[in-house]
């Protein structure tokens, strides 16, 4: 356990950029812009995800949630630089993760500044490339924008999965579960009965977090509120089914607690992209993060709250959560049956 934790923390918590996906919108398409692009892409920090053709492509590209930055060169970039010694480049970053956006912009501007000073060497008129920075979705770079979606998933997971698993194992421990099983109630009724209070409680929690973030921290809800609530309910059910699964494999409250905390909370906080961007992690951790429900939920919440995306952009995440829920429930039923035999 400690070994896993140290490895997890050590590798997941990096404040460096590696292969951040970017898009380039090049109106000039001349030698200078190609040189700058190559310099940026060969730095090891960035990876070209796509070349955009028009300004209307920018917004959809960000909504897909893959790219972190778009670099836009103005028309006649090279010619302007030659003639006036001045040219403009616009850097647009996805600031729904403010720290990461800051780093991306910082790295890009320093590479451009580097190019600029190389260019200026031995010239009388110094070249000046003027980067204009735009932080999309979170212009003031408030970190609370990043924390709210993560916080929602952690709170929901904590209440739903941990409390459910503990309360079911408590009944096992006290022997009341056995009496309920001998009673005319069927197992399904018992489980639903145990889960409903936590479902309601978590819905209230969700509402509280949303209201607080909107009115205390001024985090906007750009997208559709009903969609956000529907997706949150889905995540809740995922968490509850995970709780049920935990309770079927653990026989006492301590075990349930350990599993919930160690195997659930920790990876959720570290590997979900809540605090540390998943893109920066070693490949193996990125793979592991795929099986963490919160990762997908956070993407959904960020998409809806900050970017205002519609269901078309998050159907895959939704499907993944749905699949996980079905899987957890199926395994629980199977485990439960084995116990009865």
């Amino acid at each position: 356990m400690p070994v896993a934790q140290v490895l997890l923390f050590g590798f997941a918590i990096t404040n460096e950029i590696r292969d951040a996906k970017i898009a380039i919108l090049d109106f000039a398409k001349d030698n200078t812009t190609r040189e700058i692009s190559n310099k940026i892409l060969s730095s090891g920090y960035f990876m070209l995800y796509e070349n955009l053709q028009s300004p209307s492509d920018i917004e959809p590209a960000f909504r897909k949630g893959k790219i972190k930055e778009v670099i836009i060169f103005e028309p006649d970039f090279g010619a302007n630089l030659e003639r006036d010694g001045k040219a403009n480049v616009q850097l647009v970053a996805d600031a729904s993760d403010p720290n990461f956006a800051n780093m991306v912009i910082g790295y890009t501007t320093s590479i451009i500044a580097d190019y600029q000073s190389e260019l200026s060497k031995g010239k009388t008129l110094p070249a000046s490339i003027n980067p204009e920075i735009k932080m999309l979705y979170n212009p003031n770079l408030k970190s609370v924008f990043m924390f709210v979606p993560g916080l929602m998933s952690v709170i929901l997971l904590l209440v739903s999965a941990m409390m459910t698993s503990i309360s079911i194992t408590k009944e096992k421990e006290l022997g009341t579960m056995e009496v309920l099983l001998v009673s005319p109630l069927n197992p399904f009724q018992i489980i639903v009965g145990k889960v409903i209070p936590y479902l309601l409680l978590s819905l209230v929690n969700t509402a509280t977090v949303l209201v607080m973030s909107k009115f205390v921290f001024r985090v906007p809800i750009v997208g559709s509120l009903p969609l956000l609530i529907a997706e949150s309910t889905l995540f809740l059910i995922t968490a509850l089914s995970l709780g049920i699964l935990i309770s079927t494999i653990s026989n006492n409250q301590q075990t349930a607690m350990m599993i919930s905390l160690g195997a659930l909370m920790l990876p959720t906080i570290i590997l979900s992209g809540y605090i540390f961007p998943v893109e920066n992690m070693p490949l193996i951790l990125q793979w592991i993060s795929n099986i963490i429900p919160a990762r997908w939920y956070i993407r959904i919440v960020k998409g809806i709250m900050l970017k205002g995306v519609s269901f078309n952009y998050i159907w895959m995440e939704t499907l993944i959560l749905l699949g996980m829920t079905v899987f957890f429930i199926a395994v629980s039923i199977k485990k439960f049956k084995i116990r009865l035999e």
Partner: protein
Amino acid sequence: MGENHIISVKDLTKKFGSFTAVDKITFDVRPGEIFGFLGANGAGKTTAMRMLCGLSIPTSGKATVAGFDVYRQTESIKKNIGYMSQKFSLYEDLTVKENIDFYGGVYGLSRERRKEKTEFLIDLLKIEEARNKLIKSLPLGWKQKLAFSIAIIHEPKIVFLDEPTGGVDPITRRQFWDMIYEAADRNVTVFVTTHYMDEAEYCSRVSMMVDGRIAALDKPEKLKEQFGVGTMHEVFVKLARPAA
């Protein structure tokens, strides 16, 4: 299988992998009987009982409980039996009244019926002052009596008691057995497992399980006669010795 048998078991077997927990047991229980189901720990008592309660599906053999088949009619069985485990199984964080109300509800008693039962039980057990107290604050003996009363709250035909007197002092045990007698007088069949051999003397008939098999089954006095000893304890030792 006889008409007047409330529990009828023939060659009932339960295997877990290659381990045979219950090996072809056969017995009948008559209505209103107090049937003692004895055996050392691990002899297969609990497994056998779980099969009869519909908690566990047998590997082979036949059994009916209250006229219902243990393979296909477990739901009907559950409606007709009461069950009390060695852990007493009450909700510690609920009061006496709430526990009665909850279990009454689980067994589908109407609101009026639950109220009636609550008053009746509180009166019967003389625990008026504990009505609104949490279960965890009650003495063990009270909990145990209350658990038994709740196990038969829906007036089942049979009540299964799984080592109901574990960890209770002899006087309370005696009082508890008085309650069992009262229930049997009302024609409730009592199926009780225990490893207190003095309690075996209170039963109408007892069966002794050794290594998953029923080694002996008769009235306590007949068994003592058969083995030529004075107490059930000695009967048990004689039977269990070959296994040990």
